[in-house]
């Protein structure tokens, strides 16, 4: 049931572009999780860990601030730099 479209993009790279089950990201006001059916949501990001689940796999990366948008089961993360785990 992979039904969230996650995109992680930096000015120099498209890091992630795939369908996932669940996303957890470091919002400036605290960590937040996104499951299908989330309300439209925009947040600034703090420096921290971004995790996402796809089936039994979980992946992690560090994002350095930026902005995230959640809309229609699509999560777009715009960040200046990403450090892959």
């Amino acid at each position: 049931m992979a039904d969230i479209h996650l995109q992680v993009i930096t000015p120099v790279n498209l890091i992630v572009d795939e369908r996932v089950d669940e996303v957890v990201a470091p919002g400036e006001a605290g960590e937040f999780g996104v499951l299908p059916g989330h309300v439209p949501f925009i947040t600034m990001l703090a420096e921290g860990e971004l995790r996402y689940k796809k089936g039994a796999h979980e992946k992690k990366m560090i994002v350095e601030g930026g902005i995230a948008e959640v809309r229609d089961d699509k999560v777009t993360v715009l960040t200046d730099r990403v450090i892959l785990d």
Partner: protein
Amino acid sequence: MASLRQIRSKIKSVKGTRRIMSAMKLISAVKLRRAQELLLSFRPYSDAFMEITKNLARRCDPERHPLLRRPEQVKRLHIVFMTSDRGLCGSFNSNLIRKLETYLVTDAKKYEEIKFTFRGRRGRDHFSRNKITGVESYTGINERNYKETAEKVASELVSEYVREETDEIILVYNYFRSALTQVMVYERILPIEQWGETKDDSTPIDYLYEPTREAVLKKLLTNYVRVRVERAIEESLTSEHASRMTAMESATSNADDVIKKLTLLANKTRQTMITTELMDIVNGTESLRKGGAD
């Protein structure tokens, strides 16, 4: 007919020009590759940025931020016009200038005031001859310093729009479609287009904002303008190199043609000279022999 020596010196000069052209072509090819890499990796980011902002503009109340302002009457236009500093790049500048001039005498008539910001010496010089000077003009932009310029241009545009000194801002530049085709585009960056406007009329629910709506709007909207300008400059730079490369390529092959023709001419001239000389000699010996037989 030109003398052999004249033709030869002409060949020599064309060869020199050809060498310069082909060197410029190689340089442009290298620059193009670098610029293209930058551009292609920036495109997904800027596209996503635009999409988010356009969605936001549709969902959020325009009263919330001055950059979301939607003027009722659009009377003052600000055009950011992007050309190159240097020539020798085919129709890169001339097309853009010609189209803008047509635009100015047709569609742009409805505006009461039009302001310009120029990127690139070519556009600025052309329009200053027609007594149109830009509010601001930027030259000497390259792959290393375009980000600072984009930021400067963007912050000026933003403050102008916020002070309500202009109602609409458009970017005019060459969009890089491929190394062979560049298309000129007009893009309205402010007021922000509302994405999906035509699909349905009902205003969809507004976003949730974190930490606060003000903070998010401020960050997103000011960066939006910068991202648009930066993207346009990158497109323009890449197109310039591509255009120059193509122009130099065809100039090189034209020079080859000219050299070929001139060489042919030189050979013909040489042949004619030899024939004439031979005739002289034959005539001379003939008359000598005739004289001897008497």
